[in-house]
């Protein structure tokens, strides 16, 4: 089946973006929102159609390519691919974007710059859709940077808050470090293979043009890009700070879609990783470490969005771990279900924040269960799903990853994964109990939440429940494909299922014990284990470490450069200016309009001429 219209997927949100940006001063708010929704709605329609033919009917979708430009006789193509992984990503991105845009109608309705907000959201959706269907490294990089730009714009959307400004800057700079890795990898590939086309590169790997050390280097550099985008250790610090942006943005960009782009990239370029054991091991251990590391931080955070942010980092690490042990299937599946339940959790958290008049500190919350079932039930579904309790979607995907780890035979990673599962369940239910269960310490008047938020929450809740029952689409191996997604052989053994669910239940039990049965005992425990508590609460002092090691040292360099610029370069510039001005002043002193001065000047000039002529005569 041929689908030559792949480029229309990102087109409609892009049109919406252009219209909204161009007309933002004249257009009616409702009309702008409607335009944006139509743009993403059309894309979502295409996504559903593609999912229907590509996933349910299992047909292979061919796409057309168009010449973009050519350098040195090498043509570069605008090239798209619609393999199952791409289709699922398109579906996830357009669905979550649509729901977040609907949700924002309620969340952002009092914001004066709502049209700009929708414009940015549309641009983001457009670039993200472009990213997940690109079959060309240069094109991928192009969209990769565009989503980074949108992240910057949206994190800093409330730029009048200094924290938001700082966070936007941090998000941009830290991901940029990773992007450099990706860019170098792209250059290296082009140097070796002479093409950006994924299919050509795949052939090159297959035929041995790109092997050994070069392949390992390239794969690890691409992983560096993914580390930056997906908030993996050691470049994870930007993601929790990015929570300064509006909550719908956190749900869309920093939970469900953009941060998963790193995982998607590793999955899509898996043929590069598959050839290098070192690269795979790196991915697996970085992922595993991040998963556990972020989960332990999330245990002590007090800002509702920060808990969720660290949980996102942790879950992304989990997906990377799945990639690292060689299962694109398992981690893409987790990427999909995580997209649903994490967007759900963030949107529910946003609704909690709205309901409590923009209170984000969970220590000041409590007792919301009775107030709004529309809030608490979706949140509970999200928690159960992320904790991996059957039959919620998280259980199935997490199970696949655990099974993939077990198949790879890396026992240490399996232990890490199970520990992460335990911590995940614990901090999610700590959050749940603190927000919904115990009595509120401060009396809040609870806002009702608008219908648009309820709709989004309901749809995502349904997705989180049923998402696990659909198995992730696998590639048709008889066809020419770039990513091979194959199911894991057989089923996970019962003891593995049992221990995963057991770890989750243990986490939930501990949370219940500490925050429901023995309220207040958590503080006591924190005091007794104050050293551990501080390590987690201060996020392992990673931010402070970076501040000292990188930021300060760079500031010293910047100080020198600033001095050089100000005094040496600036000095030369000022001297040239001063010299020119002095000459000018001298000239203008003569032009004073006094005839008598002019006469004097011409007299002196005449005398000089006369004297020099006479002396010239005498000497010559």
């Amino acid at each position, binding site marked *: 089946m041929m689908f030559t219209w792949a480029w229309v997927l990102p087109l409609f949100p892009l049109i919406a973006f252009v219209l909204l940006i161009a007309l933002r001063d004249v257009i009616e708010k409702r009309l702008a929102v409607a335009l944006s929704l139509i743009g993403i709605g059309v894309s979502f329609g295409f996504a559903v159609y593609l999912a229907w033919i590509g996933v349910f009917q299992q047909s292979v979708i061919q796409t057309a390519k168009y010449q973009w430009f050519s350098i040195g006789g090498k043509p570069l193509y605008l090239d798209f691919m619609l393999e199952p992984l791409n289709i699922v990503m398109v579906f996830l991105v357009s669905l979550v974007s649509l729901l977040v845009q609907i949700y924002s109608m309620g969340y952002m309705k009092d914001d004066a710059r709502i049209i700009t907000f929708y414009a940015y959201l549309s641009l983001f959706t457009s670039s993200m859709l472009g990213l997940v269907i690109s079959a060309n490294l240069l094109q991928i990089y192009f969209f990769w940077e565009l989503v980074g730009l949108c992240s910057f714009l949206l994190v800093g959307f409330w730029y009048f808050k200094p924290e938001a400004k700082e966070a936007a800057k941090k998000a941009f700079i830290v991901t940029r470090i990773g992007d450099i890795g990706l860019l170098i990898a792209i250059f290296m590939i082009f140097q070796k293979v002479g093409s950006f086309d994924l299919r050509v590169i795949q052939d090159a790997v297959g035929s041995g043009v790109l092997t050994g050390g070069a392949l390992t280097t390239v794969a690890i550099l691409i992983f560096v890009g993914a580390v930056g985008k997906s908030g993996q250790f050691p470049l994870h610090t930007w993601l929790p700070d990015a929570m300064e942006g509006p909550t719908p943005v956190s749900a869309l960009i920093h939970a469900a879609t953009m941060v998963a782009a790193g995982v998607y990239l590793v999955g899509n370029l898996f043929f590069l990783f598959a050839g290098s054991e070192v690269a795979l091991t790196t991915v697996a251990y970085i992922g595993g470490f991040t998963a556990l590391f972020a989960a332990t931080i999330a245990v002590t955070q007090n800002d509702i969005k920060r808990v969720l942010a660290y949980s996102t980092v942790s879950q992304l690490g989990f997906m990377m771990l799945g990639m690292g042990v060689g299962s694109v299937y398992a981690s893409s599946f987790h990427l999909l279900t995580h997209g649903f339940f994490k967007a759900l959790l963030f949107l529910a958290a946003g609704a909690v924040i709205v309901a409590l008049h923009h209170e984000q500190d969970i220590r000041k919350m409590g007792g919301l269960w009775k107030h709004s079932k529309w809030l608490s039930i979706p949140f509970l579904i999200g928690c159960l799903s992320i904790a991996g309790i059957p039959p919620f979607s998280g259980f199935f995907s997490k199970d696949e990853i655990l099974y993939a780890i077990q198949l790879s035979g890396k026992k240490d990673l399996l232990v890490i994964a199970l520990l992460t599962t335990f911590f995940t369940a614990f901090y999610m239910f700590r959050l749940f109990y603190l927000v919904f269960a115990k009595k509120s310490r401060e009396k809040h008047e609870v806002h009702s939440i608008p219908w648009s938020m309820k709709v989004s929450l309901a749809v995502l809740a349904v997705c989180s429940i049923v998402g696990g029952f659909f198995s992730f689409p696998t590639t048709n191996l008889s066809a020419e494909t770039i990513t091979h997604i194959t199911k894991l052989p057989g089923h996970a053994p019962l003891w593995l299922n049992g221990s995963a669910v057991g770890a989750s239940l243990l986490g939930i039990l501990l949370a219940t014990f500490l925050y429901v049965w023995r309220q207040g005992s958590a503080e006591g425990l924190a005091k007794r284990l104050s050293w551990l508590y501080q390590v987690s609460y201060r996020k392992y002092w990673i931010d402070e470490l970076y501040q000292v090691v990188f930021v300060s040292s760079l500031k010293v360099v910047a100080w020198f450069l600033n001095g050089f610029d100000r005094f040496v370069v600036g000095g030369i510039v000022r001297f040239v200016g001063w010299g020119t001005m002095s000459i000018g002043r001298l000239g*203008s002193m003569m*032009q*004073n*309009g*006094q*005839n*008598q001065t*002019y*006469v*004097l000047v011409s*007299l002196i000039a005449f005398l000089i001429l006369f004297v020099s002529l006479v002396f010239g005569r005498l000497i010559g």
Partner: protein
Amino acid sequence: MLIASYLALAAILFVIGLMGVLTKRNAVIVLFSLELMLNAANINLVTFSKMGLVPNLNGQVFALFNVVVAAAEAAVGLAILFAIYRNRETIDAEKFNLLKG
């Protein structure tokens, strides 16, 4: 040696005129000084026509022309001075700076 005294007179008159042109503030006196310089030149012309290497009448004729030109110039100069005075109520040469760049 007679010629030297004529020429010295002319030179002294010329320098006095030049000093007047360069230093006086009153525009009328500047005009007078101009006349002095012109007449110094006339004395030179007449001196050389009488005592030069080739004495002839050309120099004297030229001096007569010069007197006519000087008269015309004085008339024009005074007219300009009147015009300026009507407009600016001053004949101070230092205030005449309309040519300033």
